[in-house]
């Protein structure tokens, strides 16, 4: 026993190294597999306040771009207002409309931290659970999809960007509805992504629009993702692999929307229930 202690004492450096290294690896692995709010990320108060100051300063340089974009969006929304529709017929009946009810709510947020040049990119937004943000909510801008909320603190949240090796978004080709998973693969840069498993009978053309599909629990349907840049069929496969040019400019993100799917819990519960039923029957 004494010899053992002596041995450890003599080689304490190596032992300490292994202990610390396994601690680090543990942190990495835990963070990879569990999506729970961890303390040491940029949504904690200290890091976030520094990053927020820096983002505030940077924001001034993009004021013009942001203004233009807002003005454009305002114009678009104004076009959708009731007053801008001319009455074309007198045959209109008013219905007290209970067939529609709200499924999504939107929160606008500011990006205080962003990256595009790593294999796994994340963003930090200035809204947290105080503002109703929860895990796994979808994030997008007026130009397209941005990502999915990963961790939430009181005033901030971190978002797993689309530019992340762990991203998969269920998406479809707008013109005929064939769908497949979109991911950010090796060889993609900050304005491309890859869409997999598109059957070869689909007549693809460069420039076709890719949008989110209805099968996603987080994203509303028909949010713009990008356009087809090129596509190929690898030998021996019955599917196209499509390179998608993203419509969101990830280098210029400043204001984004966070989507809350109000029926998500209901749907999830139901799906879980039928899944466990099938399991029990087998």
């Amino acid at each position: 026993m004494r010899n053992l202690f002596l041995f450890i004492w003599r080689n304490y450096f190596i032992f300490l190294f292994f202990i610390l290294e396994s601690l680090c690896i543990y942190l990495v692995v835990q963070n990879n597999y569990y999506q729970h709010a961890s303390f040491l990320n940029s949504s904690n108060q200290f890091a976030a306040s520094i990053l927020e100051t820096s983002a505030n300063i940077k924001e001034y340089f993009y004021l013009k771009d942001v203004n233009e974009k807002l003005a454009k969006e305002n114009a678009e929304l104004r076009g959708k207002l009731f007053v801008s529709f001319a009455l074309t017929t007198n045959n209109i009946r008013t219905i007290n409309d209970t067939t529609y009810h709200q499924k999504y709510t939107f929160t606008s947020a500011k990006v205080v931290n962003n990256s595009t040049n790593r294999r796994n990119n994340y963003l930090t937004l200035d809204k947290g659970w105080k503002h109703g943000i929860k895990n796994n909510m979808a994030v997008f801008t007026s130009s397209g999809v941005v990502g999915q909320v990963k961790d939430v603190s009181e005033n901030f949240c971190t978002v797993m960007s689309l530019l992340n090796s762990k991203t998969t978004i269920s998406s479809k080709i707008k013109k005929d509805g064939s769908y497949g998973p979109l991911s950010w693969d090796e060889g993609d840069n900050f304005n491309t992504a890859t869409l997999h498993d598109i059957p070869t009978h689909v007549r693809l053309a460069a420039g076709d629009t890719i949008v989110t599909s209805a099968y996603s629990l987080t994203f509303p349907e028909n949010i713009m993702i990008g356009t087809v840049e090129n596509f190929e069929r690898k030998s021996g496969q019955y599917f196209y692999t499509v390179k998608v040019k993203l419509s969101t400019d990830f280098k210029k993100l400043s204001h984004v929307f966070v989507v809350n799917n109000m029926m998500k819990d209901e749907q999830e519960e139901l799906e879980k229930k039928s899944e466990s039923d099938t399991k029990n029957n087998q």
Partner: protein
Amino acid sequence: MINTILRNIIRFIVLVLVQVLVIKNIELGIFINPFIYVLFILLLPFETPKWMLLLIGLFLGLTIDMFYDTIGMHATACVFMSFLRPSVLNWFSPREGYEYGMHPTIQYLGIPWFLSYSAILVFSHHLILFFVEIFRFSETPSTLLRVLISSLFTLLLIVVSQFLFNRKKEEE
């Protein structure tokens, strides 16, 4: 002694701020990711106890992780780098050993010594960092390319900063 500690604390804060506020925002594509903050570990005094080296590496890594949202990755790389440092210093030690009061800088030991010393440590740091980041071996060629190019850029920044820093010292 207190002077050395104070100087290292200031260097720590400055390097972390430079890394997360300046270099993090300069995005030159996914192959060029310099991490100049490792200069802090390179420049620690020769007399730093080995256990302290590891703890400093852990602390530095976790601080950077906090800003990069990569919990544990930079820490893993930094601890590994701190672990290698004593052995690398031994390999490259001059025949008479290091004199008391020397610092591991270009100024004291010359460019060839400093370059080979920092190249090995920076490369090992980046190697661990990028492989832990991707966490799989299927993308090895492109990951290796990222390691190589990023290491070169980090080295370049480190050497340039050393020249700026040293000149200031001579004027004092």
